[in-house]
């Protein structure tokens, strides 16, 4: 057995390892067929191979074997026989082990591959059978379909035949109907003719018949419903009837014509209005849109419009064809213009829309802002709502005394503040009142002072008077002049306020208020005063008083103004004096 392997080895080149290993495998299997088939790695077989007795043979055998396989020799030839080289043995063993491992690896790989290919094959077989089944099925189907097609074709053929038959039938029937119809018509005509003849005959017979004739009994004739007598039938009646007929027809046509004319006029009016509207719509916009570029064309159109207007005006009156044509043409023109205008507007609108799209970004921002603000508002609203709720809760819970007291405090505080303000205002008012009162009292005091002075004056004056009445008038003259001087002084003082009336008025208005309060105490005295002033001249007109007064005043070079005041209006003079008294 090893010979054969050797032969193989000799023939093959021992270069590639794989080949070698396979060869070795082969050799192994060939060398040790029995153990290798069962378990190639079990030691006992190896141990059986070498025993104590045949070591040298084994060595030599192995050496030979190894050398034949291309490994370095295990033994070195020495004089006392071959000697086992341990290193070489070990190297060889290692090499063999390596080879063996590699062999195992490949075996495993091949086995895996084998399994894989086996499963693959199984799968392929399975699919093959399935496909075969499918094929069978489709073949069967195909045959079924073919059969059905055949059947259908047969049916179609039969139906075609049927159709043809039916068509023929229909044609036949139609022809029958037609022939019947003609027959029927013919028969009917014949019958009708016969019927007519019979009628004729019957008519004749009935007319000729004597026994039962038509009778007409009338008590007396009645007049015509229109009260006229019936006319004789002459040639004229026919003409009259014709005439009347045509008259009615003409009337009808007339009325219809009128209606149509009216309708036409209405429609024309509508057209006119439409046209006018169109012109008004189109004309003002023209310049703004076409601009200066199309100035010449604009002029042209405007002239056209004028023309059109004229023509339409004409057409309203003349309804001749030409005018109508013009009107419709103008309308058409306007319409076209309007259409183009609208189209232009449309395109502009679309442009604007595009532009709007361009401005979309700020819009978005805006929207975002809006959303944000809305959200905020919502938040605040919620906030307010919760606050309200809380407040409500607190109010609703009566057990919460603290808050109640707090609230009460709040209210009290508010009330207090309000009261304080009120108090302040009252205080101010009070102050004002007091100031006024003080003024009044002062004025009253002043008045009483004045009164006293005046009383004194009067007393002196009365005394003077009294003294003047006494026989010692001459002696009293100097005193009299004194009093006059006093009066003149008063007059002088009166001149002053007259020169400044505005000032006086002021003081007057001021004093008027003050005196109104003081008047109850004052009036009697003033009245007395007045009376005395008045009484004195009345009682003694001979007395020099007014005239003397005036003369005296003149003598003292008093302006005429004053004199006039004194003489002409005593009352006014008095008021002046009164005023003066007040103002002093």
């Amino acid at each position, binding site marked *: 057995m090893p010979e054969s392997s050797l032969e193989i080895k000799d023939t093959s080149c021992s270069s590639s390892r794989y080949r070698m290993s396979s060869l070795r495998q082969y050799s192994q299997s060939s060398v040790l067929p029995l153990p290798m088939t069962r378990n190639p790695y079990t030691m006992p077989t190896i141990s059986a191979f070498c025993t104590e007795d045949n070591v040298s043979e084994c060595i030599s055998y192995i050496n030979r074997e190894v050398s034949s396989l291309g490994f370095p020799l295990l033994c070195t030839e020495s004089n006392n026989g071959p000697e086992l080289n341990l290193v070489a043995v070990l190297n060889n063993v290692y090499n063999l082990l390596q080879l063996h491992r590699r062999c195992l690896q490949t075996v495993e790989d091949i086995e895996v591959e084998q399994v894989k290919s086996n499963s693959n094959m199984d799968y392929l077989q399975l699919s093959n059978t399935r496909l075969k089944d499918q094929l069978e099925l489709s073949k069967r189907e195909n045959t079924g379909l073919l059969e059905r097609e055949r059947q259908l074709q047969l049916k179609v053929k039969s139906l075609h035949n049927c159709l043809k038959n039916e068509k023929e039938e229909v044609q036949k029937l139609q022809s029958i109907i037609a022939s019947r119809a003609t027959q029927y018509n013919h028969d*009917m*005509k014949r019958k*009708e*003719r016969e019927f*007519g003849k019979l*009628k004729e005959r*019957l*008519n004749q017979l*009935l007319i000729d*018949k004597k*026994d*039962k*004739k*038509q*009778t*007409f*009994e*009338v*008590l*007396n*004739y*009645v*007049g*015509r*419903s*229109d009260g006229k007598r*019936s*006319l004789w*039938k002459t040639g004229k*009646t*026919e003409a009259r*009837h*014709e005439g*009347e*007929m*045509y008259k*009615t*027809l003409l009337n*009808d046509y007339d009325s*219809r014509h009128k209606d*149509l004319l009216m309708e036409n006029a209405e429609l024309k009016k509508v057209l006119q209005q439409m046209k006018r509207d169109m012109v008004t719509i189109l004309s003002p916009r023209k310049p703004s849109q076409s601009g200066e570029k199309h100035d010449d064309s604009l002029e042209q159109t405007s002239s056209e419009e004028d023309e059109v207007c004229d023509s339409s005006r004409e057409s309203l009156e003349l309804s001749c064809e030409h005018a109508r044509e013009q009107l419709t043409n103008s309308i058409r023109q306007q319409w076209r213009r309007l259409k183009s205008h609208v189209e232009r507007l449309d395109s502009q609108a679309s442009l604007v829309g595009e532009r709007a799209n361009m401005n979309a970004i700020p819009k978005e921002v805006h929207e975002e802002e809006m959303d944000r603000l809305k959200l905020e508002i919502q938040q605040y609203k919620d906030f307010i709502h919760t606050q309200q709720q809380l407040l409500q809760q607190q109010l609703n819970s009566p057990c919460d005394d603290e808050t109640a007291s707090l609230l009460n405090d709040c209210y009290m505080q508010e009330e207090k503040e309000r009261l304080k303000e009120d108090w302040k205002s009252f205080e101010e008012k009070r102050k004002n009142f007091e100031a006024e009162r003080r003024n009044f009292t002062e004025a009253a005091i002043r008045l009483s002072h004045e009164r006293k002075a005046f009383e004194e004056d009067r007393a002196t004056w009365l005394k003077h008077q009294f003294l003047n009445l006494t026989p010692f008038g001459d002696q009293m003259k100097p005193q009299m002049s004194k009093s006059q001087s006093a009066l003149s002084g008063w007059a002088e003082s009166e001149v002053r306020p007259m020169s400044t009336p505005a000032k006086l008025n002021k003081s007057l208005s001021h004093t008027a208020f003050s005196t109104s309060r003081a008047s109850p105490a004052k009036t009697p005295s003033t009245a007395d005063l007045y009376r005395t002033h008045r009484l004195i001249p009345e009682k003694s007109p001979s007395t020099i008083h007014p005239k003397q007064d005036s003369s005296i005043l003149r003598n003292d070079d008093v302006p005429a103004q004053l004199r006039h005041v004194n003489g002409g209006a005593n009352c006014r003079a008095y008021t002046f004096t009164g005023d003066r008294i007040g103002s002093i």
Partner: protein
Amino acid sequence: MPFSEEWLLSGHSTIKATCVQYRLVVRDVNTLQILHLYTCLDQIVHMEWSSDSLFILCAMYKRGLVQVWSLEQPDWYCKIDEGSIGLVSSRWSPDGRHILNTTEFHLRVTVWSLCTKAVSYIKYPKACQKGIDFSRDGCYMALAERRDCRDYVSVFVCDDWHLLRHFETETQDLAGVEWSPNGCVLAVWDSCLEYKVLLYSLDGRLLSTFSAYEWSLGIKSLAWSPSSQFLAIGSYDGKVRILNHITWKKVTEFDHPASINNTKAVVYKEVERKPVVGSADLSIQQHITMGSTLFNTQSKYEICPLPVQVPVVKPDLDRANPKVGVSSMAFSSDNRYLATKNDNMACVVWVWDMQRLGLLAVLEQTSAVRCFQWDPRRPRLALCTGNAKLYLWSPAGCVSVQVPAEGGFQVQSVTWHCSGDSLILLGKEQLCLCYMEVGEEEEEDDDVK
């Protein structure tokens, strides 16, 4: 007991005539007092007022007799005996002084004059749906004739029966002639086998021809609007076609569909109400009349939400004169509305708006409509369905009125008084005068028996 009743309102509207067998009773419309009583020779079959309401014509066809009575002179009489030639139809001429008698077999038309006792004969009158028509003003008469299997139309002047025009018409079998209300156009239509309308001028010129379709049953009815502006043609296909008076072309077409889903139309449905069930929520107007007995179920109208399915009877088309197609049409006096009835929807009356040219209202009755007529003065439609109720429609709404009569009073037909103030309801054995008052109706019934 053999009983026949004829009644008629005189044209001048104050008098009404009724006849029972041999007797002719003339009553005042307002008081129902008997004004005159005449006795005829035989049972009266037909009766007609003269246009001036001075005479009444009573025809006894079996005897071939016509008797005329005068209201002014009760003792005046006139008797026309057609003799053995027979009589099938008798009518007044528009002037009320001539009587036109059609003899048996339509041998001729005899014209008798009450003024001159003159007799004229017109030969070859055609026996058809409407062979004779007088123009509205009473000036002309159109007569359909048949000679040598051809149709002719003769136009006579009613004044002296002068033949004005005589022309052949292009019809297979002429079915009728009708003057337009203005008397200037004559509509001539073919028999139902062919859809054909011919329009002739008064002077015999053919103005226009109209044909909607072929090979199917054609025209069933025809109606002129009072203004002569529209010609409505009802046909067996259940459609109404409206022609205009200028071009004589079709203006519009009104279909009568089984399902109504026109949102502009109002569908009134009559609902019979048992006395127990008392839900009056949807009633438009309800009249609770006095005599509601067990037999008289009350009814009211309900507005149906759209779409509405109209009951349709499938007609037997194999039989002659099938119940299909538009059989009756009527324009209101103001030309605004058109009422139609389609025979295979016998319970339904359709009202069309002629301004809008569309459907306006649909009245769905519980039983088949017998007759409908427009108020001669107002846009108001009265209809009856052969029960004890009168139905009225106006643009404002719909009313169902119970006729307060004992027994089974069944309204067979209705006729308006020419003033539109009253209405005669004719039953089988009774008639009822219905007086309309502003806002309410008040009835009074008159038992003639």
